[in-house]
């Protein structure tokens, strides 16, 4: 990797972008109540919120991987009738204000929603006010990030690899598992990271659909917002904790898996 001399018309806006993105974070860090982090971390409300956030964001990401990756492949390979239409549909959650997404989820999966009523009447399953509801809300909001990223990965892949594998006698599952997936691993990983980050930060759809109760549906962003009403510096403290946890995870991920991602080809 050699650092090339950057032309000024890229350098100046690029640096402005960095400053713009970094300043609010610096603001948070300087305002954080560094002295009271110990008490903050031992507070059961914080611990509950961290636990709910970790559990729900990981489950949501897992669901996104299991359902989103196949859809990304289908979209990339034009395997469905009306691919373009479907692609437009699945990015709608990206455009919806999250609070509206929460209302949408209620109308579909609430106790009186068209899918929710069926689940409630026949199986007694209710999503609102449960951790499952939080996972559902996060999955809804985060999955498009994974689909878009991974689809781009699949599309950048030459079909020949899959065809060669097939002519060598590999089954379609073997081809997907041993040829396609390893080749899109970098795209899949950045998709997963984006998706997970979106799930962790989710607020509007969660509070709109799942409600706000400590230990059940109160994720870190909800705890932070609730705390903001009372004590701003504690709220900032919680935000910095969330920020640090996420940064550590992202840095570790990058170091372990994304080493090859900086290559230029």
């Amino acid at each position, binding site marked *: 990797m050699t650092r090339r001399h950057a032309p000024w018309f890229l350098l100046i806006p690029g640096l402005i972008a960095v400053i713009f993105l970094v300043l609010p974070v610096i603001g948070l860090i300087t305002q954080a109540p560094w002295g009271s982090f110990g008490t903050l971390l031992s507070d059961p409300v914080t611990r509950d919120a961290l636990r709910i956030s970790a559990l729900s964001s990981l489950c949501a990401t897992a669901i996104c991987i299991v359902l989103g990756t196949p859809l990304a492949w289908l979209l990339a390979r034009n395997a469905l009738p009306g691919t373009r239409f479907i692609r437009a549909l699945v990015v709608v959650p990206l455009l919806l204000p999250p609070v509206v997404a929460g209302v949408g989820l*209620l109308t579909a999966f609430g*106790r009186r929603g068209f899918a929710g009523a069926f689940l409630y009447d026949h199986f007694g399953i209710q999503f609102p006010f449960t951790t499952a509801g939080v996972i559902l809300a996060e999955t809804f909001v985060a999955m498009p990030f994974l689909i878009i990223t991974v689809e781009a990965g699949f599309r950048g892949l030459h079909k020949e690899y899959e065809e060669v594998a097939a002519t060598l006698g590999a089954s379609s599952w073997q081809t997907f598992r041993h040829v396609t997936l390893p080749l899109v691993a970098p795209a899949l990983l950045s998709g997963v990271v984006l998706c997970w980050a979106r799930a962790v930060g989710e607020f509007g759809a969660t509070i*709109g659909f799942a*409600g706000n*109760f400590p230990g059940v549906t109160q994720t870190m962003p909800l705890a932070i917002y609730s705390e903001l*009403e009372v004590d701003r510096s504690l709220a900032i403290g919680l935000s910095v904790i969330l920020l640090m946890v996420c940064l550590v995870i992202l840095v570790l991920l990058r170091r372990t898996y994304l080493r090859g991602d900086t290559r230029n080809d």
Partner: protein
Amino acid sequence: MRAPRAIRSTGVALIAAVTSLLVVSPATAATSVFTPASDAKVTGTITVSAASSLTDVFPVIAKAFQKRYPGTNVKFNFGGSSTLVNQIKGGAPVDVLATASEPTMWSAVNAGLVGKPLLFAKNTMAIAMPADNPAHITSLADLARPGTLVGVCAVTVPCGAAARDLFALNKVTVRPVTQELDVRSLLGKVLSGDLDAAIVYVTDVKAVGKKVSSVQIPASLNVTTTYPVATVGKTTNPVVAQRFVDYLRYSLSAQGILRAYGFAKPW
């Protein structure tokens, strides 16, 4: 600074009055000058930050106010009372603050953000259920039944503090499933049928009409919350802001509208 502008806009008659202020006794001068001078400047836009429970009634009052003072324009910013106070702390350009409880207003007074508050309305609590009342709630005690999905506001907002006090006063132990951050979101989850019951203001029940069922709570066992209003210290239009505050508290029209929406007198 205000006197010269008043002269320009109300004409020669006033010049005599203002001159008389300088030479004649202050008492007579005050009656002759003060009213026209301030009337002349009641124009412009103000932004009113108001508690969620005022969402329906305030636009109606604003219409009456704008009719009474042509050339004024009242904009609103509705939210949970403590959120509104925090917004002003953070420098939000707001002219008037109306909260749903005295403690939230005190926090703004103590932070030096607002002027002297006036109490302009009172509210009490009720139980709201979906129209078909799926959990068959008929009293506060029913909310304690296991498996009943009860919602409240978070204790940091006035309707949540009121719900907590209401349960304590009636000695019922309720395990809510959600603590919403403002009363309108709470009511929304009753309307959608996802909650069996929620503790909201009587005015909220009145506002949505037949879309919810409700249980009234006897006055002796109910909790009341009082609504204070005050001008914000950093207002850019103190004249209109003060007029709006006075109008809310003292005008028959504003008080009549509040009554029609179910708010009680605070005095």
